[in-house]
């Protein structure tokens, strides 16, 4: 592929690459330029970082260009629940001041970011897509948000999502329906649908999401983006409003793998405030993008290429796998029989954990409180919760409470934990022989708004390829790999625990050889 600039390592990241040196010439005056010059909102985070470092463009100009784009397209896309223009421009000014003081800044300083509304942002409304948290202003930042602030990334706003991250289309948001920038009549996926839509629409070059059963990878797939669910424990969950604590992981949605690696260099690592964050060394993920995948071995789980996968999506994935084979990887089908049970295991475990986690919303310390007359404090809890939670959240709390209740615990939650062990063992066995596993991310391209909204079971089938990854705790990456019906298809690349560097190397090599990731939705 010709349009990718020459590779530079992280330590050289501030040097301008030669391949695109000319493209930035018209950029120094901000966002008003025509002809063949590239618009700021079309650039990757890496490309913006280069231009910021060289002084071609200021952080304020970059941030203003993205808000100009938001003004232009947000009315069509509805990706955001809140915009933080003043705060973003203030942070951009600080970055520009530091840079003019010859301060050595990181490669993402001045690059704007969208933040999923599941992540707490100090003083900025954080609703988790729910009426339960309408008006809630957290007194602290999530660790991921803090790290992005410290890296100098202006937050443009909080992105829409399925209520409490429960859903696969963002239609479960209590506030608005977000539209897929590739086709405004289709969903962007979910639950991180706002994050995916804002990047696909050029409203921000990167965004943070969270992934419990596919909520980063599936919207990334449906919107033609790169998205990474890190290994459980790789990124701190502090300040991530909990859905299912043994499955949740925050991670990035970006335009390409190099941006994903840059963001992971910011996010990854141990956090004192999350005891489940792993004390495992963090490699330089950008330096790991060598472009060389020869000799790596890939397995293709038969169970993720069978029934339920749209035939055209399947053919597209097979072509992507052949492309990787052409780059020197060996490919072999693998059998992982217990993976077929992932969906029921996920329902039982995720809902049980959700029922426990969401017990904290009681109308006392924060969140919605009923205005109905109440008999006692229990009545206050029950009425506040009944009013504050939407229908999908109520269903999941009920299922989880049922699965944990006396008389049903062993048959449901207990059984699911045991089958989870078997699923994990299938992955362990596959990774003894293979470096990565490959599958579709989503069994179909983006579906129509309203098409599956009334059928929770049908909706959950959208996650059949992504859920096993969360159950096993492993990392997985989505990369765009083709189009069906003029909508993006995504390849899922799964890796060993803490093997983010390997799956990103594979995804990056694929992107160097192809140009699917450079395609942009037209709005």
């Amino acid at each position, binding site marked *: 592929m010709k349009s990718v600039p020459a590779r530079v390592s992280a330590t050289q990241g501030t040097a301008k690459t030669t391949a695109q040196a000319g493209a930035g010439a018209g950029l120094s005056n901000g966002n008003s330029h025509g002809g063949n010059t590239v618009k700021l909102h079309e650039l990757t985070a890496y490309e913006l970082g280069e231009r910021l470092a060289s002084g071609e463009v200021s952080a304020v100009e970059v941030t203003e260009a993205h808000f100009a784009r938001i003004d232009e397209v947000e009315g069509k896309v509805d990706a955001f629940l809140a915009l933080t223009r003043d705060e973003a421009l203030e942070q951009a000014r600080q970055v520009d001041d530091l840079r003019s003081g010859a301060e050595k800044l990181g490669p993402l300083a001045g690059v704007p970011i969208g933040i999923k509304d599941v992540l707490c942002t100090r003083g900025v409304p954080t609703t988790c897509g729910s009426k339960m948290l309408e008006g809630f202003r957290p007194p602290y930042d999530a660790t991921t948000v803090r790290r992005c602030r410290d890296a100098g990334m202006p937050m443009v706003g909080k992105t829409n999502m399925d209520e409490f991250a429960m859903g696969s289309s963002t239609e479960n948001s209590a506030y608005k329906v977000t539209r897929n920038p590739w086709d405004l009549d289709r969903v962007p996926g979910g639950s991180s649908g706002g994050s995916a839509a804002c990047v696909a629409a050029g409203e921000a070059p990167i965004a943070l999401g969270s992934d419990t059963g596919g909520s980063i990878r599936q919207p990334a797939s449906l919107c033609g983006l790169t998205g990474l669910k890190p290994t459980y*424990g790789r990124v701190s969950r502090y300040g991530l409003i909990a859905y299912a604590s043994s499955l949740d992981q925050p991670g990035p949605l970006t335009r390409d793998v190099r941006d994903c690696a840059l963001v992971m260099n910011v996010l990854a690592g141990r956090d004192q405030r999350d005891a489940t964050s*792993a004390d495992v060394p963090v490699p330089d993920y950008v330096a790991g993008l060598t472009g060389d995948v020869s000799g790596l071995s890939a397995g293709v789980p038969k169970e993720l290429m069978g029934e339920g996968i749209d035939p055209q999506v399947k053919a597209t994935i097979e072509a992507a796998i052949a492309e990787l084979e052409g780059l020197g990887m060996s490919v072999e089908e693998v059998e992982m029989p*217990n993976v077929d049970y992932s969906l029921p295991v996920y329902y039982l475990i995720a809902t049980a954990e959700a029922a426990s986690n969401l017990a904290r919303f009681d109308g006392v310390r924060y969140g919605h*409180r009923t205005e109905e007359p109440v008999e006692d404090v229990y009545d206050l809890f029950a009425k506040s919760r*009944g009013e504050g939670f939407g229908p999908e959240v109520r*269903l999941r709390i009920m299922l989880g*409470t049922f699965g944990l*209740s006396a008389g049903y615990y062993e048959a449901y939650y207990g059984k699911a934990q045991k089958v989870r062990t078997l699923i994990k063992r299938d992955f362990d066995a596959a990774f003894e022989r293979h470096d990565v596993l490959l599958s579709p991310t989503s069994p179909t391209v983006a579906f129509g708004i309203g098409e599956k909204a009334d059928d929770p079971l049908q909706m959950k089938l959208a996650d059949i390829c992504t859920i096993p990854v969360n159950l096993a*705790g492993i990392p997985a990456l989505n990369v765009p790999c083709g189009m069906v019906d003029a909508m993006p298809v995504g390849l899922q690349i799964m890796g060993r625990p803490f093997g983010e560097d390997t799956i990103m190397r594979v995804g990056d090599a694929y992107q160097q050889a192809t140009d699917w990731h450079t395609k942009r939705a037209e709005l």
Partner: protein
Amino acid sequence: MPDVSREVVEHVSMLARLALSSEEINRLQHEMGRILEHADKLQAVNTDDIPGISHVIPMTNVYREDQVGPSLTPEEVVANAPESADEFFKVPRTVEE
């Protein structure tokens, strides 16, 4: 398929402290039944001698020394409360006079 009776739904809603309308109980009875029917697939899996896992990445307890550090002020703690008085959360009376 488990019998998700109206009584079961009402009992679970009490455990979950979730007030539900009569229509909502009907809806949940139907949807919970459908999903649990799907979950019954698991009963066919042999899990004799298989330990359950609650956590996939091996971890042990994490300890550290207590440290004095900055924390939220009482005003910040109650700032998001629907009702508060001074430094306290307000709730309906829980103890009889």
